[in-house]
């Protein structure tokens, strides 16, 4: 039966078209046209995504095969898309938020020349395209294509301002760190192929139960390695903060809508496997939590507005993995969604601030902006509230779901997670207050330059603010409202709803109150601490945190330097003085032998005869007396 969903290829198709047109004809097209193309294509995909979403909501799901991608004898990998609850949801997030960011970019990037403007949007479209491939792929290989595709796009966009060497280094770092993760993913793939003989989700999950636990554990762990790369978890998170090198909307895109959520998506998608591998689950949970805390602590001491947000992202991702780790896949996905809203909001807000500050990113040089940037301030505030998890904002519901399931899983985890939540509130509001409250600390000409951003930027902010506020209502806990948890209901075909997390509704209620109260306390504390900014010399722990736990330096010392040393050693010593020397040595040997042997040719008749006689003697002796 020709399923209506067969046409889903249109969703990635349009961004691709946008990419091609903007990419090839960027010199010819006018900026406005580029903007229209860039955003328009995404809008179209968004519309289609909505249609698909509705289709899926009506219980329609489909795997659309198009052609043989790789085929070797019996083994075939089809180029196929899979549309079900999970992917359709992500489609919405990606295209929706992506579209908003596109719109925002149109005005944010105005200063760029047409050519680079075109380049920017083509990259953006390609980004969307890759992300769509990633979530729509009906098997791990297609997913991997998108997986590496987003890596590429992040590389391109982070290095967008290619004249700046630092930015380019950041771009390389992003790509290479991703590659490390991808390696894990790749090997997991081979293992799957070797064990299952297929990579399509359907086969893998159906045969999963037949695999040995060890295999599944290894597979899932390797997949998780991939996830740590993409979703910036310990130990591969350091690229994400550096990724701030790109234009702010790009950061928004990377952090909110696309790239970093890939890891979550992949694990959520493979929930069947993970559920069969408790060990991996614990690893995921622990790594996630650790990352959450680590990033949060770092975020507390950052002064670059974008860096703070970046680390907050890392930390939030940590929460999501925690959720996945404790088996609350829905909660994880839920948080992805809400996080997409408020993190996009925050980033775009930050972008607007930076825009107003004429490129300034250091919050110590800001302050008191709420007067000038009303909308930005307001929306940013909403974002902060949402991320801090204050009801009834979206963040509250998702984060609460995570905490709850963590509690149900293990009290200690819960405790730490809660602590992390408080830290979140702390650094977010620190950011907010330092930026918008107090007195302006920038230069005078910045002061004059200050202005609210154009509509092209504020409208997306407002939309996102609304979403950030209301986004949580799709997942209201049963406690408040029977069947309020639309999300898990919607996702149930993909992610089986775990019945009863062993937490009585009263405890649940209590936990919510505790967390909320604590968060509020923290916010109040922050208010008093940062209402008036006074510069303080960081020392001790503070310095340690401000320097991000010196992780970058550590990596530099234990990985980069040794690798270079090794390479230099091989290149200068082994290659030149050993291998090549050996090869040339043979030639030299022959030459030397030649020089020696020709001394036999002494030119003396006598010696010639003598040599002849001696050799005759030798032969006779052997012939007659030694040889039998």
């Amino acid at each position, binding site marked *: 039966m020709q399923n209506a969903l067969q046409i889903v290829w249109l969703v990635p198709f349009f961004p691709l078209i946008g990419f091609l047109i903007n990419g090839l004809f960027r010199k010819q097209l006018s900026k406005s046209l580029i903007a229209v193309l860039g955003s328009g294509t995404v809008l179209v995909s968004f519309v289609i995504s909505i249609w698909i979403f509705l289709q899926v909501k009506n219980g329609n799901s489909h795997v659309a095969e198009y052609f043989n991608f790789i085929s070797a004898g019996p083994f075939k990998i089809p180029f196929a898309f899979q549309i079900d609850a999970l992917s359709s949801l992500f489609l919405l997030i990606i295209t929706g938020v992506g579209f908003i960011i596109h719109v925002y970019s149109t005005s944010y990037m105005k200063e760029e020349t047409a050519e680079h403007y075109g380049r920017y949007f083509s990259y953006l479209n390609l980004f969307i395209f890759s992300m769509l491939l990633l979530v729509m792929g009906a098997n791990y290989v297609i997913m991997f294509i998108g997986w590496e595709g987003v890596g590429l796009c992040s590389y391109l966009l982070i290095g967008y301002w290619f004249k700046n060497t630092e930015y380019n280094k950041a771009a390389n770092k992003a790509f290479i760190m991703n590659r490390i993760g991808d390696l894990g993913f790749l090997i997991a793939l081979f293992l799957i192929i070797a064990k299952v003989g297929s990579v399509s989700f359907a086969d893998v999950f159906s045969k999963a139960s037949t695999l040995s636990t060890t295999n599944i554990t290894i597979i899932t762990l390797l997949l998780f390695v991939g996830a740590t790369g993409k979703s910036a978890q310990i130990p591969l998170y350091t690229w994400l903060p550096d990724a701030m090198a790109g234009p702010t909307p790009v950061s928004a895109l990377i952090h909110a809508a696309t790239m970093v959520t890939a890891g979550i998506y992949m694990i959520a998608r493979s929930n069947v496997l993970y559920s069969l591998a408790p060990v991996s689950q614990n690893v995921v949970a622990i790594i996630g939590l650790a990352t959450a805390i680590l990033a949060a602590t770092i975020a507390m001491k950052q002064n670059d507005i974008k860096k703070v947000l970046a680390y907050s992202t890392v930390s939030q991702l940590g929460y999501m993995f925690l959720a996945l780790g404790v088996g609350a896949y829905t909660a994880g996905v839920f948080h992805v969604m809400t996080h997409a809203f408020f993190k996009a909001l925050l980033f775009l807000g930050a972008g607007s601030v930076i825009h107003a500050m004429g490129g300034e990113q250091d919050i110590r040089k800001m302050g008191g902006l709420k007067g000038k940037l009303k909308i930005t301030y307001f929306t940013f505030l909403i974002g902060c509230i949402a991320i801090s998890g204050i009801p009834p904002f979206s963040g509250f519901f998702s984060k609460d779901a995570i905490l709850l399931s963590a509690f149900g899983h293990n009290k200690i985890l819960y405790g730490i997670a809660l602590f992390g939540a408080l830290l979140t509130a702390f650094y977010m509001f620190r950011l907010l207050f330092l930026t918008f409250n107090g007195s302006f600390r920038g230069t005078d000409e910045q002061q004059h330059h200050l202005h609210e951003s154009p509509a092209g930027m504020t409208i997306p902010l407002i939309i996102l603010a609304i979403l950030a506020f209301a986004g949580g209502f799709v997942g209201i806990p049963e406690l408040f409202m029977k069947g309020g948890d639309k999300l898990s209901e919607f996702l149930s075909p993909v992610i089986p709803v775990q019945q009863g997390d062993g937490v009585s509704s009263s405890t649940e209620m209590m936990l919510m109150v505790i967390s909320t109260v604590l968060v509020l306390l923290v916010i109040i504390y922050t208010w008093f601490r940062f209402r008036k900014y006074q510069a303080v010399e960081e020392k001790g722990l503070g310095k340690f945190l401000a320097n991000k736990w010196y992780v970058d330096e550590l990596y530099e010392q234990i990985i980069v330097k040794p690798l270079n040393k090794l390479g230099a050693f091989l290149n200068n010593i082994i290659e030149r003085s050993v291998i090549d020397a050996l090869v040339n040595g043979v030639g030299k040997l022959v030459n030397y032998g030649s020089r020696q042997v020709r001394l036999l040719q002494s030119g003396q008749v*006598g010696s010639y005869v*003598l040599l002849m006689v*001696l050799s*005759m003697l030798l032969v*006779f*002796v052997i012939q*007659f007396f030694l040889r039998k």
Partner: protein
Amino acid sequence: MSITQILFWFLSVLALFSALMVITSKNPVYSVLWLILVFFAISGHYLLLNAQFLAIVNIIVYAGAIMVLFLFVIMLMNLNKDNEPQKNKWLKLAGALAGGCLLLVLVAALKNAETKSAVAEAGTGDIGLIENLGKALFHDYVVPFEISSVLFLSAMVGAVVLGKKEAEHAN
């Protein structure tokens, strides 16, 4: 022991001794003379083996012609004094040793060849007579005989080529 045996031993000793003298005597002229003695001794052996024709030819060709040629050349170059530069004695020793060893090895190898029973009885048979040899030469061996003429021709040409003064080179 019989007279032939005595003769054999005498001739053998003579041949060897004079051969040694050839290679040891300082003065080339003496060498030539000793060599002639070697040839005579060998001719004597030929006679014992009654190869009369060869004995004569040996005397005529070798002792007569070739050795005289040698003598002429030596005189022409007036090398008839014993100031010939000597090889250093180590080389000489090495040479002597090598030659000696070769002799030893060959002798040791051949001393019990299956021919040791066979003898070359002296004083019998007539194949050595010029008549028989002539028959054989011009009946069976005519082709080699003719061919050897080519050898002489080339030797002749050689003499011309090497001997003739070169006019255009001279001036």
